[in-house]
Structures are given as C-alpha cells and as structure tokens.
C-alpha cells in the first residue's frame, strides 16, 4: 500500500466537503505531487467502497523549463537591463551574456535601454529608465502558484509563443465519499492465515477482495492423448454391449489371413504393392493349418459350399507373403477359425480397436497407419435386420446419427466361413470404422497430422477435454 498517512489525509479532506473534490486540488492543498495523490486514491479504491473516484481529464497551463528559469532569475530583458551599469556596456559584451540576444531586442522594444552606435569605444548600450517592472516574471509566478486564471487568453498565448508556458492534459479523479466512507483506513489482509484462525483475529480483519476475473494456476499434471481417450470410450461401449476383446497385438500378418481366408481373390487391387506394405524380412509366413488352407485354395479356384468361386490359379506363394495387416479383420478371421475348431459352436461377440496399415497416398485425412474399430457377432440365424439393429444400438451410444458416413458393415460370406468349419446356419455380421475419423469430428480437428504422430502440438494434448461420446 502507498503511504497510509496520505490516504488518510485524502479521506479527511473529503470528509470536510459535502460534494466532491478534484484530486489535483487535493494535491495543491496538501502540497504534494499529484501522482502521490493518485497512488493514494488507487490504494483507497482497493479497500472497497470507502470512496468513489471518477476519472476525468483536464487541461492546465504549466511552465516550461525556460519559464521556470525566468521565475527564478527574471526575464531575459530584465536580466539584460540589470546587467547594464550606469556607465553603459559595450554591445559586444552584452551579446556575450546568456540572455543577451533575446533580452536585448525585448528590452529595446520595451524602451528600457538605448544603443549608442557612434560611441567612441564602439556601439554601447545604456539604461533609459531608472527602474523596471518585470511583468513577464510576474505572470509566470502567478502560473506557478496555480493562479493561471488571473491571466487573460492573449497573455497566455503570448507566453506560449515564447515557449515559456505549455498547455498539458492531466488525468485526475473526481473524488466523492463512497457508500462505506470512513476516515480511518483498516489495513486489509491478503489472505487467511493459520495464525488468524488460531487466534480468532480473522473476526476483526478486513480481507482484500479476490480478482475473480483472473484465471487460476493450472495444476501440474499429466494428460491422456485425445485419440486414446476416444479409444477408451469405444472399448467401454463394446464392453457394455457384451463384446469380448480380440488379441490384435500382431501387426505382421500373412496374406493368407489378411486376404485369402476372407475370400479376397489374389488379383484384388487391395493386394497391390501400391496399397499394402509387404515385408522383405521376414518375407514369408510358414505354418498354416494345411487342411483349412486347402479348402481356401479350393473355394477360390474351383468354388464349393454353394459358390462358383473365382476360378483362377490360386498360388500358395501369394498367400505366404507377409505384410503389415491392412485391417483387423485378419484377426477376426483367425478368431472365427479358432472358434470353429473348438468342437461345439458357441455364439460370440468380438471387438477390437487397433492399428492397421495402408501403403496409400497420404493427405489431410489419410495416414499410412490408423486405428480400426471392428465389431463381430457370430450366431445361428442372425439376420440383416439384426445387423442393422446392432449398428443402431452401437451408433446411438456414440451419439452419431449419420453413421453411414463413417463406417461400413456386412455379413461375412459363406465362402469365408464354411471352409473354416463354422457350421452351416451360423451367420457372422460385422462392422468397422476408423477411430481417427470420429475423433477428428469430436475434437474439431481437420488435419489428421494435428492429432496423430510425433508432430502434434502437445498443447493440444494438454488442452483437450474429456471424451463423452454420447453428449
């Protein structure tokens, strides 16, 4: 707090007045610098409603540095006059005086002095009058005393022209008593302390008000990545719907499980080098369930299980090629095959959310790797109506109305299921979507690079809200 004494003086000053007072007047009455009063006003304001202070600006006249010099030493012309002795002064010497040049011409026009050009020792200056009245100095003294009103406009402008006065704008306060006006200032406490609680002194203290406009101090904490927050929610939804998580921790897959087992023909464009990352090391997979592989080969090349097949020369070498899985459906295929091997069929609901890889052209919404969400239901007698019903439930939980846009769905073909040993009559419905797309929609991110990968701005991670998909 600024000088408490001064603040109290301001309050005392205000108490005597019925109306208000300008802070400048207070300064001049108390003979202190106006800035000190402003400081006192500000500290009083922070104490609550002791006073009310309305800011205003006013213009006033102030002496320039030269004007102040004149108040002390007299005007240039007076100084010239005073410098001239009875016997006169040579013009050359006079001009050497600090006020010489300005003072000489003014004193001449005032007819205080005369110049004798023909003097024997060269031009010489003599007094013309006995005494003078230095009105310039007098006027400036009035201004310094704050009595500018005694000068008329013409006089002020002339002094302004001589650069002795200047007009300045001053910001001041119009002070009036506040609703809780008092002449005593109680020192306000910044905050409650343990000592105050123990001693009970808090009862008598006044507390400095908090600034509720300011933000708090952010807590020191770690943060979860927004995409992973959304992943957690999707897991939650599947778990709520009774789906069991598939083991998708195998990024490397053989073409056999990634394509052939899904009845994807070997010449399919998705199996092109331009779309899929193949491996050079380890280049090929070994250990296939050979009897199943033979059935897959047959259904592709000759048909069977009610299918015409694709009727082409199915090659083992093509199926052996290792790759980075292009979809998690490769894992679904492994799981369904495993299910078929367990003897008696039991209905299942499976899900997974994990990375998949595509060797495709990258743009604002496509990266070489992304997360695929997949749901699979296998049971006797499932219908297309069931598929649509499950999708409806799932997307309702997501809070997404237009789900057609973000995913795809279908019924697995008999050519895929029957060679696995899944019993006839069992239908398998499935759907998939990317995790990134709904996350970008949820968090309003347009470029996938701002969400995934090492180039993301961690501030985005720090600032991202929690994920509630259904709200």
């Amino acid at each position, binding site marked *: 707090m600024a000088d408490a004494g001064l603040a109290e003086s301001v309050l005392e000053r205000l108490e005597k007045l019925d109306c208000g007072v300008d802070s400048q007047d207070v300064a001049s009455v108390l003979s202190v610098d106006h800035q000190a009063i402003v400081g006192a006003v500000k500290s009083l304001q922070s104490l609550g409603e002791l006073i009310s202070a309305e800011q205003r600006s006013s213009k006033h006249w102030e002496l320039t540095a030269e004007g102040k010099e004149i108040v002390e030493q007299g005007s240039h012309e007076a100084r010239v006059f005073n410098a001239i002795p009875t016997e006169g002064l040579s013009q050359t010497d006079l001009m050497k005086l600090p006020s010489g040049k300005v003072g000489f011409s003014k004193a001449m026009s005032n007819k205080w002095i005369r110049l004798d050009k023909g003097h024997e020792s060269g031009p010489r200056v003599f007094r013309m009058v006995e005494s003078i009245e230095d009105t310039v100095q007098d006027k400036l003294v009035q201004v310094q005393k704050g009595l500018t009103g005694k000068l008329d406009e013409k006089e002020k402008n002339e002094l302004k022209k001589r650069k002795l006065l200047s007009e300045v704008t001053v910001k001041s306060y119009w002070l009036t008593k506040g609703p809780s006006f008092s002449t005593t200032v109680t020192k306000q406490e910044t905050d409650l302390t343990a000592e105050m609680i123990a001693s009970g002194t808090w009862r008598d203290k006044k507390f400095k008000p908090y600034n509720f406009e300011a933000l708090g101090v952010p807590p*020191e904490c*770690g*943060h979860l990545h927004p995409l*992973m927050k959304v992943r*957690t929610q999707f*897991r939650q939804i599947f*778990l709520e719907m*009774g*789906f069991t*998580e598939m*083991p998708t*921790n195998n*990024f*490397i*897959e*053989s073409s056999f499980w990634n394509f052939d087992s899904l009845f994807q023909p070997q*010449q399919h*464009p998705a199996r092109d*080098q331009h779309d899929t*990352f*193949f491996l*050079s*090391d*380890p*280049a090929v*997979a*070994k250990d*296939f369930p050979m009897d199943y592989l033979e059935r897959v080969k047959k259904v592709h090349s000759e*048909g069977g299980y*009610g*299918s*015409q*097949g*694709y*009727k*082409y020369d199915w090659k083992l070498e093509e199926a052996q090629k*290792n790759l*980075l899985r292009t979809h998690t459906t490769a894992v679904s295929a492994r799981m369904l095959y495993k299910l078929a091997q367990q003897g008696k069929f039991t*209905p299942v609901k499976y899900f997974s959310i994990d990375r998949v890889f595509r*060797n495709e052209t990258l743009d604002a919404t496509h990266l*070489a790797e992304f997360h695929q969400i997949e749901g699979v239901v296998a049971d006797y*007698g*499932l*219908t*297309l*109506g*069931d598929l*649509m*019903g499950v999708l*409806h439930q799932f997307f309702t939980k997501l809070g997404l109305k237009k789900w057609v846009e973000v995913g795809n769905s279908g019924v697995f073909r*008999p*050519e895929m299921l029957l060679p696995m040993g899944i019993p006839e009559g069992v*239908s398998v419905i499935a759907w998939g979507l990317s995790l990134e797309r709904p996350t970008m929609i949820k968090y309003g991110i347009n470029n996938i690079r701002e969400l995934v*990968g*090492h*180039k*993301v701005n*961690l501030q985005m*991670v*720090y600032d991202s809200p929690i994920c509630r998909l259904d709200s």
Partner: protein
Amino acid sequence: GYIADEEFDELCFEFGLELDEITSEKDIISREQGDVRAAGASDVVLYKIDVPANRYDLLCLEGLVRGLQVFKQKIEAPYYRRVGATDGKPQRFIITQETAVLRPHAVAAVLRNITFTQERYDSFIELQEKLHQNICRKRSLVAIGTHDLDTISGPFTYTAKAPDDICFKPLNQKEESTATELMRLYKNDSHLRHYLHIIEDEPHYPIIYDSNGVVLSMPPIINGDHSKISLKTKNVFIECTATDLTKAKIVLDMMVTMFSEYCAKPFTVEEVEVVCPDGSTCLYPDLAYRKELISGDTINQKVGIKESAESLARLLTRMCLKAEVTGKADEIEVEIPPTRSDVIHACDIMEDAAMAYGFNNIARTKPKTYTIANQLPLNKLSELLRLELAAAGFTEALTFALCSQEDIADKLGKKISDSRAVHISNPKTAEFQVARTTLLPGLLKTLAANRKLPLPLKLFEISDVVLKDDTTDVGARNNRRLCAVFYNKIPGFEVIHGLLDRVMQLLDVKPSRDQGYYIQAASDSIFFPGRCAEIISHGKSVGCLGVLHPDVINRFELTMPCSALDLDIEPFL
C-alpha cells in the same frame, strides 16, 4: 420424362447405388483449374454415381439405364443370345503355342450390323477404358481390342514374336514402327506408359494378325491403325487376351451385352471360334445363364423379413435376376444372366432381394446372442497403467509404428543388422522402412517438435513394437512396451528412476534382489556412459533406464539433457 434430382437420388439408393454428386464439366474444371480455364467448357449436367466395385454391368449408361428400367418395371430384362454367322462359318481366332508363357488366353466376338452415334461410340470407348482399369487390373489380367471387321479378314492368329520382328502402324500414328521403337516412343506417353511393364522385359511380345498379315493389335499395349473403329463402323470384332480366362470371358460378355443393343438384331452377338494350341475349340462369347434354386424361407431368414416366395421372385426379377416359384414348397428358381458375374453364391441373391425389398424397410432387431464380455488382459493392464502414468504427471504421446531404419539404428548409435526389426519391401518413403523396435525414437521426435513448450517435458507411451521371432507363424511378434522420457535443463535421472519405482509399486513388485526388482549398471549406446541401468525383475531383464547420450540428443535435434525409461510390460501380466 424428366425427374427431379432428389427423386433420382432416392432411386439410386433403392437400387443400391450412391449418387455422389451432380456437377458439370465446367464445374469440375472450374474447381480444379479456376474459372478462366472453365469458360468454354460444357455445362451439361453430369451425375456422378458410385457403383459397387463388382457391378461391371452398371459402368456404362446403357447398362445403368437398362438396370434401372428393369428395376422400375418399365421393361423386362433382355435375353442375350450368341448366334451363328449368317453364312454358317464363324470367324476363327487361332492361338499359337508361343503365347503360353505370356498371355495364354483369348476370347473374341462380333457385333454385327451395329449403328454408332457419337454418344454410343464415346460410351463404347469409355466402357473399355473403365473395364481396363478395374476388372482387367490395368490391362495386366485382360486387354480388350476392338476392330472394324470390314477392314480385316480372318482367320486371325494370336501369337508372340521378338519385338524387332514386329512392325506395324499403331493407332493414330503415321509411320510404321517396330515394337522395340514403339516401346521407346510410349515411354513418354502419359496414358500408355503405365502398361509397358507388363511385357517390356519379355523376349517375345503378344501380337494378333489377320490372314493377310495385317496387325490387329499388340496386346496389352496398342491396336493397329489399320483396323480402327469409327462412327461408320458396321461390324465390330472384339478380342480379349488374358492371363485369367474367367475374367476374359466376363469382360467380353460385358462388352457385348452392353452394346449388342445397337445391333440390327438387338441383344444378339455373333460367335467366334477360338482355336487353342492343342487344337481344341471354343465358341465365344460365353453368355452363359446359370440357374440357382433357393427357398423363400432361407431368404426371409437371412434378411429378417417375411415375404411370400412369389413376392421374393418379383423382387429378384426387378434386380435383373429373373426368378420364378417352382411350385415345390417355397422354392424359387433364379436365373443369373451373363451381366451379373458378381452373383456367385446364393448369398448374393439374398442381398439383391434385400436391396429390392429396401434396406430401410427391414425391421431393426436385436440379436438374441447372449455373451459375457472380456477384456484382453494385456489391453486391460495397458489401460490401467496409462491412467496411472498420467496421474504421475506424464503426458501421453501417440507415435507411429512405422519409421526409418535411421530412427531405430543410426540415431541410437546402433547397427540395423543387429536389430530384430522387420523390414518393409515397398516403402514409398524412408518413413516406412521398418516397424519400430522401440518407442523411444517416437517420443524423442515428439519432444523435438515441441521444444517451444515450457520445461520440463514429461512424456510416455504404452504401445506395441514389432520384433522378429522365429517361433510365430509369420516370423514376428508384437511386444507391449512402456516408454517414458524426462526432458529438462537437468538430466533428472532420479525423476525417471522414481517413475520406475512408482510403476513397480503399481504392479505390486517390491524392490528386492531375489523376490522383486532392482536395477544394475549397464552400458548401451543410447545412454551416457555410467548413466545407464538395466531393470531386473524376478531375475529377468525387463528394460532399461538412464540419461541419454549427448550424441543421441543431438541426432534427434534436441538441446537439453534427457533421461528415459523403457520397460517391457508383458512379464507383468
């Protein structure tokens, strides 16, 4: 008459298509190249429709209109017939043994007395191009050649010759060239250069001659100029050479079923006798109709509807799958026309029935399937640890599983040959050379991209790396790792060490030499000498921690000291 755009959109949806957008040539050019370029372009309305990948019969306007008219029951689906030549002697197409190693298959047909208009002609050319791009797999599986039959005379010979022994005037060129010269010429052709690789390195190129030695085409690259078709062409000879006979038959069937509409006898196609090297002969086009029997009950059960067999037969007929009830129970006989090569199983018939019924008319039901959900234990552990690491003040990063060799080897002061990394054979850029073997490079790159943020930076990631492993069927396996870094003005080994202690506490592993975990001095090129320790849990090495080597810090474009923790979490399952 005209129909409104909304009505057309609705019709497309009912028919299983998606109306992508309504635009014009002018709009497209204006969008891609600006208004100035678009000034003179056509503003005729274009409808862009997404067609399912295997519905080749909907790729041209002729097929699409026919399909929609049948669907709307304006017309009956036409019956496509292969007919003999008027003089009883079919055109002959002879395949020689020389083609066997290259493109051993060929099929052919004649469209007799066809009438082209500019629109029909353009559509004819466009369909060839669309088929070349998809089912023909950019001409590698099948290549189509179309010729003015009146300019050539059979029998035709399909053979293969050394490139220098092949000489002809190719389509739209003025001079004759050898095949070698042509291949050189087309290197710079924006369109044809994409097909050169199919035969480029072969000692012999496929070539088709007529009985006078006139070159019809050099598949799959270019036709001869001599036999090119024009608006005035009356009789079209179509040949398809292929590595896949099934696809060649489909492609030929598509071409002739779509355009025989414009023949003097609509929907008839004149046969061609193809003679194989072994002397056997086949008549083409195939135009095979197949019949399937399916019970109405099966369709109802799979779709989830209750329609009579008669009603289902009507729905299928509207989808160009002519169907009739046989009278035996609820049995339906379905005839699959040559245009519907996509129908290879009864399930495809059911899908069409569902589509004609209207997907939106099928009642949504809840499956009765009762199951208990289980989390994958590894993922459950990862989820629980992620929350605890964030609670410990570390922020989760999400980095790529693929990276450059440099990231996991050179930059860490290691040799790629010493790593267990799996290598990608066809990366388009260095960013996708290998799968990561450690999470550390991703975290360090994340730090580098965020150097402007206030220090310290504390990051973690729990995710999979990939390691070669002979014991699995594919020769590699994933490994779930926990990696954390502390980046500050001071190395903060004690911070990262404290994090390890906290993680072990969470995993209920006590600090102990024999019954828990401890750390012991180790050396690794990643870490500063004397500032690296190995983590031993229950007698097994499970990871390491330490202060990063200044060389590693520099190579990742970082400037401050950094400590790191790398832990395999699978032993703690």
